[in-house]
């Protein structure tokens, strides 16, 4: 399509690099340097979207981050499509597929436009007042309809093809915004040799100066100043320049977070590059130089395509070489639009300027209008047109009354309602705003963090002052205060007469003056909200949704609170602002997530024999961060068959388990035993070196926290084990007491979880399997009884060999330095073939221990369970005066007779395997809610007993032995018998390996 509205010979586009993309299926041409908005305007396309609620036709309103209207779905290829992109900031790149949003069937002909006809019904908060009858219609009808109408673009449904990375960095001075203020600040700060980062969200640095063709700075054109400043900065090693980088969040302690768009502007990016980079900057000092946003004017139908901000007209003309229209009416209440009008006139466009201010109040800017018709003292009462503006209706004001209407034919309106400093980041830093009446704006007041603002974001609009202010801020931030004067000509026309909704002769009831363009909030909505008692600006915001759209009210905030102040006759500072929150502009989830995707989402911890298990075809389960072998199916086996085989192997011969994930802590020091005494409920003083003991750990609230076998290696050295998931918290718990409660104890903790690989060799043949490899340890039952530990060697490497059993069988846990684990495992596995040695996983381990009635913390216990509840009151020393958790055990509720106690359950039918988590009742005929006695904590089909077994906690369970109770099943209930929670070998003989021909019950 021809670029009919492209202006010759100017602009910052690269005419040597034409590009083309499609918009709603039509090919649109442009140049490198264009945004989607400028390219569309160059081709004469004004209609760019539909509004949220009324589906009004909308064109582009702005030229930057504040755009509420022109939001596009942008498709960059498979896995690269996303909604709600602001046409004003997306760079035009060859090959993009761009489409407008929120319409059906097409942008031009949108059924949703009927909403505009019933707009009188769809006022602020209408949905709170209706859709209540009949009740059932809400879920079925009303809500789905509301939802279908809501939303803007379409969420992506394919996984993202792009990558994102993070970068943490530090600097002395972070300068946000590279307009004149930011450039001057960066120059000053870097001159002092400090580490400086200068970031600007735009493709090019220079800010407003990129659209300024008339100003000179120190005698040179503004553009030359920008070029030189950037060259100087780029030449300084201590400066990092980040363009296309938005500072979106200002967090505690000068943590400022920025997103850099690395590849979106490239047609064929290097695949090594991430799409976006999230910069997490910790800055010693921050200079905010984020500029100001122009305000629209409030008048009826101020939202037609072609009506945009005056400074945007200027920017399109000067920076992008685009005429947003050929007949442009500027409507303003202030000085800055005069420059826009002059610049538009300078390229030969037909220009008229309407100023709300009477002739007498117009300042030196008047001189800029030579050859331009000026209608001073005029108000705007409406516009004409449909999908594009065709005229602006104006009328003279005299003595407060509105005179005769007159329609100025035009195809573009440049409106300016004054300026709002971009105080977003300042506010996010928790700085307090102050209101300056003379510029009708909130500006930064007292800083809370090491930060300062400069330029338009501080309410300074004159170029020379901005530069000087920027310099001083930069120098100050660098700790080398200095000042520099800049000469800037001509003087910047500044000043405006605050106006909310322009005076009109129309019945206000019929006037729809849009404030929040995206969310279709009009001045009337604000009035309604206040009338209904929503007086706080926060209430007004929430009731009307003003400033809650994707632009977060950059163009509408001030208008709304100005209106509230007018209606309530309260000063603006009393009305206050709504809260500025991150992000300044929307940020992709991807940038925030960074590399935390796929295998780098969360660490997958694997044990030393993991690779071997993978090769064996093991199935794995996640246990905290670990991935553990769950069972080792042979071809054709399901989980049950595999687990049954693994269990039988352990009971009848021998099995191998990689138990390396168990937490391990080495507790060392002369006071180690005393420390253990305080940390655990049982006693440790009498445990001799070479012996092991089961340790049950409580928290101070008396509930079981963790457990594990503890081996005393030496008088001053314990090898403590913990559960797999509990390792970090047990270590932290111990360290906490050691450092903060008992600093007098001479004890040191070292995590040795990962130092020692652990191979559990369990089963009647266990001793035979390990014997050939062990040196320096007498393995005979007499010399090496159950619950002891010996140090020696296995396969020639050091081992802490423990004779312990979590299966009830004769067994050993071989601790070897982790890198040796696999070699030892393979040796044992090879040698053990003659015994049918079988690797087993966590599931078989669970079954085996349940048969023996051993608890698993986190399965039988849940943080509300005392030692006595699980039948381990024997672990609680009566003799010790104190230990962690002791006092809590004496609270009245800890001794209640109806506490839930650990029992065994046998399914009455001998077949049903209960579901873990199933609830237990005494009587199934009760009405709901039923009295529940407890729940099943563990349940398996015991391969050894060939019978389902379960562990459960049951109210007063120990007194219920032999009772029949009922357990929930998916279908109903099943009967169970309450038995002792030990199903096999209650005397504990099997650990001695005294089996005769296996067990079958």
């Amino acid at each position, binding site marked *: 399509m021809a670029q009919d509205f492209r202006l010759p010979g100017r602009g910052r586009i690269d005419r040597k690099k034409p590009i083309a993309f499609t918009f709603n299926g039509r090919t649109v041409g442009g140049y490198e340097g264009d945004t989607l908005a400028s390219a569309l305007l160059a081709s004469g396309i004004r209609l760019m979207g539909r509004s949220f609620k009324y589906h009004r036709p909308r064109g582009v309103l702005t030229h930057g981050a504040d755009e509420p209207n022109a939001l596009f779905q942008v498709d960059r290829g498979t896995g690269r499509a996303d909604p709600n992109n602001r046409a004003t900031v997306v760079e035009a790149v060859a090959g993009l597929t761009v489409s407008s949003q929120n319409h059906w069937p097409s942008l031009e002909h949108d059924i949703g436009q009927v909403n505009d006809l019933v707009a009188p019904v769809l006022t602020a908060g209408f949905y709170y007042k209706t859709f209540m009858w009949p009740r059932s219609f809400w879920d079925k009808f009303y809500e789905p309809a509301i939802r279908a109408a809501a939303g803007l673009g379409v969420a992506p449904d394919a996984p993202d093809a792009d990558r994102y990375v993070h970068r943490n960095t530090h600097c002395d001075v972070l300068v946000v915004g590279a307009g004149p203020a930011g450039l001057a600040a960066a120059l000053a700060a870097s001159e002092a040799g400090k580490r400086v980062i200068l970031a600007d969200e735009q493709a090019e640095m220079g800010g407003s100066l990129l659209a300024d063709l008339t100003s000179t700075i120190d005698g040179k054109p503004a553009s030359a100043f920008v070029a030189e400043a950037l060259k100087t900065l780029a030449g300084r090693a201590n400066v990092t320049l980040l363009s296309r980088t938005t500072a979106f969040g200002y967090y505690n302690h000068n943590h400022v977070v920025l997103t850099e768009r690395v590849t979106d502007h490239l047609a064929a990016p290097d695949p090594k590059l991430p799409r976006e980079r999230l910069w997490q900057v910790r800055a010693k000092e921050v200079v905010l130089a984020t500029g100001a946003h122009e305000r629209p004017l409030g008048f009826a139908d101020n939202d037609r395509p072609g009506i945009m901000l005056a400074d945007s007209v200027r920017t399109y003309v000067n920076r992008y070489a685009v005429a947003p229209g050929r007949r442009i009416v500027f409507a303003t209440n202030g000085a800055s639009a005069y420059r826009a009008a002059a610049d538009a006139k300078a390229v030969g466009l037909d220009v008229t300027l309407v100023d709300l201010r009477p002739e007498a109040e117009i300042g030196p800017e008047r001189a800029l209008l030579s050859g331009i018709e000026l209608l001073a003292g005029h108000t705007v009462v409406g516009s004409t047109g449909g999908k594009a503006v065709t005229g602006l209706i104006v009328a003279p004001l005299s003595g407060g009354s509105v005179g005769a209407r007159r329609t100025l034919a035009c195809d573009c309106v440049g409106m300016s309602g004054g300026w709002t400093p971009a105080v977003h980041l300042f506010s996010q830093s928790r700085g307090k705003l102050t209101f300056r009446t003379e510029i009708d704006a909130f500006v930064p007041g007292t800083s809370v963090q090491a930060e300062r603002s400069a330029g338009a974001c501080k309410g300074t609009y004159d170029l020379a002052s901005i530069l000087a202010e920027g310099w001083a801020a930069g120098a100050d931030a660098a700790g080398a205060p200095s000042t520099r004067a800049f000469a800037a000509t001509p003087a910047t026309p500044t000043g405006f007469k605050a106006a909310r909704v322009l005076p009109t002769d129309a019945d206000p009831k019929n006037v729809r003056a849009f404030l929040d363009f995206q969310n279709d909030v009009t001045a009337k909505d604000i009035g309604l909200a206040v009338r209904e008692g929503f007086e706080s600006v926060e209430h007004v915001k929430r009731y009307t949704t003003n400033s809650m759209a994707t632009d977060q009210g950059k163009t509408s905030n001030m208008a709304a609170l100005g209106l509230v102040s007018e209606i309530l006759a309260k000063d603006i500072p009393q009305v206050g602002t709504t809260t500025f929150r991150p992000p300044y502009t929307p940020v992709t989830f991807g940038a925030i997530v960074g590399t935390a995707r796929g295998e780098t989402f969360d660490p997958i911890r694997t044990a030393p024999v993991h690779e071997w298990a993978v090769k064996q075809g093991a199935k794995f389960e996640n246990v905290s961060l670990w*991935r553990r072998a769950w069972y080792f199916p042979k071809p054709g086996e399901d989980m049950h068959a595999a687990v049954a085989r693994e269990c039988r192997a352990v009971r009848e011969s021998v099995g191998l388990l990689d138990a390396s994930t168990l937490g391990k802590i080495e507790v060392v020091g002369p006071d180690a035993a005393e420390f253990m005494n305080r940390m655990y409920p049982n006693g440790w003083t009498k445990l001799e070196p070479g012996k092991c003991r089961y340790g049950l750990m409580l928290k101070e609230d008396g509930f079981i926290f963790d457990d594990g076998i503890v081996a005393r290696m030496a008088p001053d050295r314990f090898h403590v084990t913990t559960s797999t998931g509990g390792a970090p918290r047990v270590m932290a718990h111990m360290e906490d007491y050691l450092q903060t409660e008992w600093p007098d104890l001479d004890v040191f903790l070292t995590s040795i979880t990962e130092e020692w690989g652990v191979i559990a060799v369990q089963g009647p043949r266990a001793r035979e399997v390990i014997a050939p490899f062990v040196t320096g340890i007498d393995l005979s039952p007499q010399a090496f009884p159950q619950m002891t530990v010996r140090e020696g060697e296995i396969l020639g490497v050091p081992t802490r060999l423990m004779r312990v059993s979590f299966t009830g069988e004769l067994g050993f846990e071989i601790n070897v330095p982790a890198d040796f684990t696999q070699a030892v495992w393979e040796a044992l596995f090879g040698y053990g073939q003659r015994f049918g040695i079988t690797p087993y996983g966590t599931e078989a381990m669970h079954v085996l221990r349940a048969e023996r009635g051993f608890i698993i913390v986190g399965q039988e216990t849940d943080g509300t369970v005392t030692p006595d509840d699980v039948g381990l009151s024997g672990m609680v020393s009566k003799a010790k005066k104190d230990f962690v958790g002791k006092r809590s055990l004496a609270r009245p509720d800890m001794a209640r007779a109806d506490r839930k106690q650990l029992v065994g359950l046998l399914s009455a039918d001998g077949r049903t395997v209960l579901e873990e988590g199933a609830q237990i009742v005494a009587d199934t005929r009760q009405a709901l809610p039923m009295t529940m006695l407890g729940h099943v904590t563990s349940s398996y089909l015991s391969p050894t007993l060939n019978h389902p077994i379960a562990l459960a906690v049951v109210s007063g369970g120990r007194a219920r032995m032999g009772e029949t109770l009922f357990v929930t099943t998916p279908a109903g209930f099943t009967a169970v018998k309450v038995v002792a929670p030990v199903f096999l070998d209650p005397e504990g003989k099997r650990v001695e390996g005294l089996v005769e021909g296996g067990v079958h019950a």
Partner: protein
Amino acid sequence: MPEPVAIHARRAPILAPSASGLVRVLPPADRFVLQMKAPRGAVLPASAGGFDLSGPLNTVRGTPERFAARLGPGEWLLVCPAGEGAAAGPAIASDLAGRFFSLVAVGHRNAAFLLSGTHAADILNAGIALDLSDAAFPPGSATRTLLGKAEVVVVRVGDAFRLECWRSFAPYVHAFLQEAAREFGCATSSTRGSRQGAG
């Protein structure tokens, strides 16, 4: 009794060492955690077992292969080439005789990486929130910190950085660094085997 089997177990680190690349996996080493009480003003030993313990907190003393990194007021990570630990342990203990201390061998607990080249700090800063610039983290610096979701020890050795992490975190750390290094060129370094999905 069955016949004795006399083979010596070989060390099988979680990641195979690699000799080149922006992110290298270093060969196995021997290591100790040495702890002592260090109340303010305490006089601590200057050395033990040939390790220089005199550096202040968050510094390292020694050579790239044999060093003592002081990670806490009274905590050092001692690293030496694989095989040297057997002699070093007793030597340290005897040098410290008479003090309350804890010496625990952790040679197998960690895996180590070496990052070199102009972008080494940038790669690390993809996951480390500390200032790793020359000014803030000059050669001779060492500290414990986080890389993404893994705890690591960073040691500045000359222009390069040595990174230590617990064994089971090594695949994560490695993958993380590979991803971060991607934009700076190829970061080859082989892993041993796959890390399978859960069943």
